[in-house]
């Protein structure tokens, strides 16, 4: 990869450095520039301006590469900005290691990008050489040993199934953002039952059995609904202190009906 190729001819203008984005990366990689000195927000603003300038020439590939590198820089900077000081305990060491791993990742990414460019060059070169793949002259073809199909009909069908199966279309996986469905209405019913029995409870106690943050959020929203309906009242002595919830509704309130909002 040539200098400047990474993000096209995108140049950054910073107090500590002015020049091609790729060179900035190189300087940081070689420890010649401290990442904490670099105003990443300025770099991002400049890049957006750069993209805008090009108008219709919007290059998704270039933007993506910028994002990857910028994200890594951001990680790196965050790690560098963590209090460093003396390395005197395990935690400090862990921070240092995390920081170095991020650094290694950045360098590694650059290295693979560079060899990928070499690969592309070699492939292009090699594609200009054609191999000889021709049918055997009949006199030799008849001498070929009998073909052995090492599989039976059923395996053959399975093989055909795999070969003919539609190739899955590329999709963006949302698996990592999957969250179980939690219904605020259901949580309101749960809370109403708890509070009718207890009369008063802390928010901490009311969410004691929640195993996910989402469930805690749902209980909180449910409490707001109950408050709006006049079924509960709140009491908090100190800011950020314990939140007391009192049941002030009738016994029938929210036994079954409650605002029907579902968190998806």
């Amino acid at each position: 990869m040539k200098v400047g190729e990474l993000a096209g001819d995108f140049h950054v203008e910073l107090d500590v450095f002015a020049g091609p984005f790729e060179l900035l990366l190189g300087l940081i990689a070689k420890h010649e520039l401290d990442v904490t000195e670099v105003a990443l927000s300025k770099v991002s603003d400049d890049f957006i301006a750069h993209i805008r300038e090009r108008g219709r020439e919007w290059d998704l590939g270039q933007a993506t590469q910028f994002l990857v590198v910028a994200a890594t820089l951001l990680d790196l900077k965050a790690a560098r900005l963590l209090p460093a000081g003396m390395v005197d305990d395990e935690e400090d060491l862990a921070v240092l290691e995390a920081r170095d791993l991020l650094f290694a990742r950045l360098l590694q990414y650059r290295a693979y990008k560079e060899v990928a460019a070499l690969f592309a060059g070699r492939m292009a070169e090699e594609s200009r050489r054609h191999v000889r793949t021709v049918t055997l002259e009949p006199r030799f073809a008849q001498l070929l040993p009998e073909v052995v199909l090492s599989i039976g009909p059923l395996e053959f069908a399975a093989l055909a199934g795999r070969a003919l199966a539609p190739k899955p279309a590329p999709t963006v996986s949302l698996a990592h953002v999957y969250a179980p469905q939690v219904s605020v209405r259901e949580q309101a019913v749960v809370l109403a039952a708890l509070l009718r029995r207890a009369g008063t409870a802390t928010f901490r106690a009311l969410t004691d059995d929640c195993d996910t943050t989402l469930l805690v959020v749902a209980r909180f929203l449910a409490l707001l609904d109950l408050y709006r309906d006049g079924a509960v009242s709140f009491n908090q002595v100190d800011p950020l202190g314990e939140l007391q919830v009192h049941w002030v509704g009738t016994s029938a309130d929210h036994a079954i009906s409650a605002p029907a909002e579902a968190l998806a």
Partner: protein
Amino acid sequence: MSAQPEPGPPLRAALEAVLLVVDEPVDEVTLAQVVERPRAEVTAALTDLAAAYTKEGRGFDLRRVAGGWRFHTREDYADIVERFVRDGQQARLTQAALETLAVVAYRQPVSRSRVAAVRAVNVDGVMRTLLTRGLVEEKGSDPQSGAVLFGTTSHFLERLGLDSLDDLPPLAPHLPTVDTMDTMDDERESS
């Protein structure tokens, strides 16, 4: 041919390059078009090349057969080539060949480009192997596109131990959903 470099553009070398990759004999008119030189010059170059190969005792030979030129192994080395072909570990099909055979078997009659589309790779070499091994054969041509269609042979059925194509196990249990498949296939066809 002597060891001296030829004067002018390397016509002989260009012909050697083209002839190395051709499967069927190529006539002089076609070769002349490809190398963009007069036919007489091309004919002379081919004759010279063939004579030179013989004089140098090369293992290959350039011969004019059925109106076209093609590389052949030289007769003197036929024994060695025969030994190679007979002893070569060519009895087994490669995985790529098996998969291509499977596509042809279940989609026949099918054109080479359809097979290539399903396999998502160039299948020329593999199809040639399957033809050479007598597992696949031409089955007419597509009335619309004129593309040659291929199908499996009776030899294929024998090797798989089946009486007829009807005995091929159904594909359905091995496919995720047949409906989706067909739709996708149609889309690909028209694209």
